[in-house]
């Protein structure tokens, strides 16, 4: 069965490029425009991995990660965050919030896919 990926990013072009790459690879893709929007998908349906941006309006990436980790059904699913900041501080913060790993923007599709395959089979 195809794996389901939830992408959360407020930038349409990023969403599209990620969506395009993943659908091409045979993933089922769900798309949220910010953390708040993404939460609606966490209604018990099967989601295999979440990829989220950190800076977003309404509910940001960190907030989203914390919320996801509070929901029993999604407590252990891999969450990757997209970030341009290579500073360790930001990564630590996100890791502490419960993120599994990160993808540094800019990324080419190979990088995106390898990051996913690192945490999801």
């Amino acid at each position, binding site marked *: 069965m195809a794996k389901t990926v939830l992408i959360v990013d407020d*930038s349409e*072009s990023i969403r599209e490029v990620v969506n395009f790459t993943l659908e091409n690879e045979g993933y089922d893709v769900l798309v949220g425009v910010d953390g708040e929007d993404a939460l609606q998908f966490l209604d018990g349906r099967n989601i295999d991995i979440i990829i989220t941006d950190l*800076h977003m309006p309404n509910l940001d990436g960190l907030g989203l990660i914390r919320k996801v980790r509070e929901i029993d059904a999604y407590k*252990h699913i891999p969450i990757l965050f997209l970030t341009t900041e290579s500073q360790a501080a930001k990564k630590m913060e996100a890791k502490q919030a419960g993120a599994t790993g990160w993808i540094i923007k*800019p990324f080419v599709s190979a990088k995106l896919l390898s990051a996913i395959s690192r945490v999801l089979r």
Partner: protein
Amino acid sequence: MIDKFRAKFVEEGLDNVHDLEEAMLLLEKDPTDKEIIERIFRAMHTLKGGGAMFGFNDLSSFTHHLETVYDWVRNGKLNVTEDIISETFKAIDQIKYLLEVGDVSDESEKQELAQLTQRIKGFVSSTNEDNEAKKGADSKREEDLSASTMEASKTYLIHFKPHTNILQNGTNPLYLLDDVQALGKAFVLYNDENVPELNELNPEDCFVSWDIVLNTTEVLNEIQDVFIFVEDECDLNIVEIFNGDILSHPKFEQIIEQCELGKQKLTAELLKGISWGGDENASSSEKKKVLLKEHKISSIRVASTKIDELVNLVSELVTIQAQLHLYAETNREPKMLDLSESIEKLTRQLRDNAFEISLIPLQNDLMRFQRLVRDLSKELNKEIDFIIEGGDIELDKNIIEHLTDPLLHMIRNCVDHGIEMPEERIKKGKNPKGSVIFKAYYEGSNVIIKIIDDGMGMDPEVILNKAIKKGLVEEGLDLSKKEILDLVFSSGFTTKDVVTDLSGRGVGMDVVNRKIGEIRGEVSIDSDLDKGTTVTLVLPLTLSIIDGLLVSVASGQYVIPISAIEKIIPLEDNDRKSIFNGVIKLGEEHFPVIDLHDIFNEVCGDEKQHIIQVKFEDKRYGLIVDRVIGEYQTVVKPLGRMIKDQEVISGASIMGDGTISMVIDTNRLIHAFGNQKIHK
């Protein structure tokens, strides 16, 4: 593949810039607003991230510095100053430019960019930043190096002991082992001595650790990369133990056997004792990257000249179609008539389509105006709210091109001459903050633009005196307020005695009037002293093809734009007699009429006449013509140089039979003759 998204990113980037500009204008009003700062930061962040992803490297690195400034602001390390705001505005212009051109190549532009970058970097204490940037550059170089040099195979011992809570972050350690194995030849040994009894075992915790012996051609970095997500959630130790492959060494197998039985611990020292007789030959594999380029395009950019050409061709087609229709009708060929009708339908659709393509929203210009108001009011120490309504209205690009300068000028007028200084406004009992409203909306096939300010307004007396002094008008004439205000459109009129730096650059309202006239628009002005001024522009939606009503006046044929027409009334002889002083009474309705026979110096024939009722401003006017021939798609051709200055004809059109009919500009016609008693 990425190409496909590049255009999208530019589009989105411009939206971000737009948003950024808007947020900056808000920030200026309240430099402490956290939400606005967050919004600015986010927009910059998106530009930076996307920029790098879609190959806008200059944009990305430039925005990076800008983002840092706002990151500091966000974290309270830096306060927003006027300086920062002004530089940011300049930076936004730069970003806009970078979005348009991609990376800069021109030397002087590069320098400009570097200077601006330097100034922006100056806002944050530079040391930190520089290191950061350098570090980034270094790691990049390393990456490049690792990709280009081929390493000989080496054997490593990796000790990997995840912390018990590693599963809670969604990490599966087994995947990591798979990844390590994927790097080369590997032997994995697990250690389960810490695993508790089943009844005490918490399935959400991890108790196992692993030792991996890996033979790989990859560099150490690559191995560390596998564990990058879990660095802080495990004990990791990677040691190089052998230059070459020892996995198939008989002694290695022995050691492993011992370890599996628990007799020995696998250590680096133990393995380092193994060696082959000779040197291992470096095996290297060739890496090849195949770049597949796809060309899928969802939207395209077209040179505007091509669109002009398209519209031109469509215009020609409309003309030819009219000829065809005429031919079919005169020869009464049923088949031909059918065809002609189908072609007419298609032509009409094609025409509408071509026009839609050349329409662009006013929005693009509006941001410029907003900037203008902001910059000017700063310069003049005035406080002004600039309010925009109807920015989504679309107009022909040719019209917008002609519109920008006049609009800029008029808005400049409002800010410079219209809105008073705050002290003065307080004295007058007005809100010290002036307002300039820009309003656009559709009315029939016209677009109306109003620029309304609540400034000092214009004094008719001052204008009249000035006009008399300038010799624009004779003394002693009894002029209405409207007529006096219209005087500002006469050439050589300017009310301000001192030419200020801003508006007094020789472009007066007369030029505005002329420019708007060139695109068949109308300017009118209304003003109340101390209350404010409203300038109204009435603009056509498009320039070259209109739906017209073909009428005849004596022997000539004329086209009246359908958009202006309210109704057509047959003129009975009795009614004709009721015309008095240029006003006709039809039923209960009174309205002024203009006899086109008078205007065009024709003699009334015996033919039955019609009144074409048209709308002018809020009033109705009647135009008396002879025959009404029918609806007609009119390709309006500009008049030649010699006759283009006359008032009432906006252009000419070639009919199907090759004759020429004049297109009447009803607004100007009524403007010129409506107030005169022309009916003898």
